[in-house]
């Protein structure tokens, strides 16, 4: 009897369809109110969540993004339906936390994560090319460490409760946004902060955002969609499986942008972007290296957290805390250019990644 090796979503056709759906949904969400060329940027939206909770004081970036909640819960639902939910943790959580912090710091120097780099490119923002180039270089450095034996050690199966904590946290966030909904013109509702202007004030209706997030989370859990893995697997193994999903996202987001009149090619005056080429590049070198050392892009970390991976959950927490650090310490960029201390943030982050990469190379028995 032939062995059934793959479910549909694990095939090339499956990953291409999932990439297409993410690209289309992300650009439609922009039409419905989400920030331009941001669609479902994981880093930006986690940064907005940090703002909604008051972890930073950037008044333009405060919104409890339902897409992120949906990503985790959608993955949680899929993993349980298909019996893939498995609570596990213990693979160097503190390292993952700090990698999450620096992934966010690097991402906010560029102004986006790999997801947004793809969506910016699909919207015509030429600065994204520098970001994607930086991302690829960061991931390439990561693969050198991987080849020389770098690893974060094994995780262990653990109490189911451990795997439930991130989904429950997201459920808590959802309850918060329902209990303290946005009041027009007010920057606070109960304990949640809201933006009156800036990207944090731009969002699609809550229910649409939530269901879009749930849908993407569900599909991404099934297909293992990962933007970092896409580039990493190509560099390491010349494998194009995940890469075809990332290409599909960019192509379908591009065409959807054209149809919706959202495609504006150029480098200058691109939405929520700056034109400092070197730092667009370097920010993403740091982010790419951090994601590479942590084993997944920011989206993938959310989906893993949804299927019970407690270490991925710690990485997500690191990113949210990293957003607070980025804005409080003047590391994050703005459309005017990089923040006053952004350069130092990137340098320290790169040094940290090299330190981790060089010192955690014990061969696995």
């Amino acid at each position: 009897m032939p062995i059934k090796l793959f479910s549909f979503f694990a095939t090339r056709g499956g990953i291409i369809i999932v990439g297409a759906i993410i690209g289309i949904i992300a650009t439609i969400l922009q039409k419905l109110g989400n920030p331009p060329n941001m669609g479902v940027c994981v880093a930006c939206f986690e940064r907005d969540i940090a703002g909604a909770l008051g972890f930073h004081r950037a008044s333009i970036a405060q919104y409890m993004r339902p897409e992120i909640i949906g990503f985790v819960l959608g993955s949680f639902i899929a993993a349980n339906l298909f019996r893939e939910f498995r609570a596990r943790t213990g693979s160097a959580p503190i390292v993952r936390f700090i990698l999450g912090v620096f992934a966010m710091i690097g991402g906010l120097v560029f102004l986006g994560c790999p997801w947004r780099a793809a969506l910016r490119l699909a919207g015509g923002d030429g600065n994204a090319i520098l970001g994607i180039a930086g991302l690829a270089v960061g991931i390439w450095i990561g693969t050198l460490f991987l080849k020389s034996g770098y690893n974060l050690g094994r995780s262990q199966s653990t109490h189911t409760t451990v795997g439930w904590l991130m989904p429950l946290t997201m459920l808590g966030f959802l309850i918060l946004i329902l209990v303290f909904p946005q009041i027009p013109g007010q920057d606070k509702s109960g304990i949640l902060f809201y933006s009156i202007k800036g990207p944090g004030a731009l969002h699609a209706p809550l229910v649409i955002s939530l269901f879009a997030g749930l849908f993407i989370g569900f599909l991404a859990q099934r297909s293992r969609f990962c933007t970092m893995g896409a580039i990493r697997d190509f560099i390491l193994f010349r494998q194009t499986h995940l890469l075809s999903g990332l290409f599909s996202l960019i192509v379908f987001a591009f065409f959807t942008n054209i149809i919706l009149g959202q495609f504006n090619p150029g480098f200058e005056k691109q939405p929520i972007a700056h034109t400092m080429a070197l730092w667009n590049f370097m920010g993403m070198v740091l982010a790419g290296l951090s994601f590479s050392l942590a084993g997944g892009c920011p989206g993938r970390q959310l989906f893993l957290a949804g299927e019970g991976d407690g270490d991925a959950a710690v990485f997500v927490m690191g990113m949210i805390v990293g957003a607070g650090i980025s804005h409080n310490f003047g590391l994050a960029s703005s459309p005017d250019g990089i923040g006053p201390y952004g350069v130092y943030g990137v340098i320290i982050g790169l040094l940290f990644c090299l330190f981790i990469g060089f010192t955690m190379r014990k061969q696995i028995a």
Partner: protein
Amino acid sequence: MDKVIDARGLSCPQPVILTMNEIKKVKKGEIVILVDTETSKENVVRAAITNGWTVKGIENEEEGYRISIVKG
């Protein structure tokens, strides 16, 4: 005795790296890989097939899967 690679508890892309290292080392024969997640199973199987190996069997175990791949 076939070579058994224990990739349980290792995150992406370690199971594939360990499998690929072994494939490069032994060139042919049979390799058994233990993984603990569906994702690792898919990734290892995909890598094996891409490199011209055949999946002989996948057994469910308490802690994941036992994948046997062969090349003649």
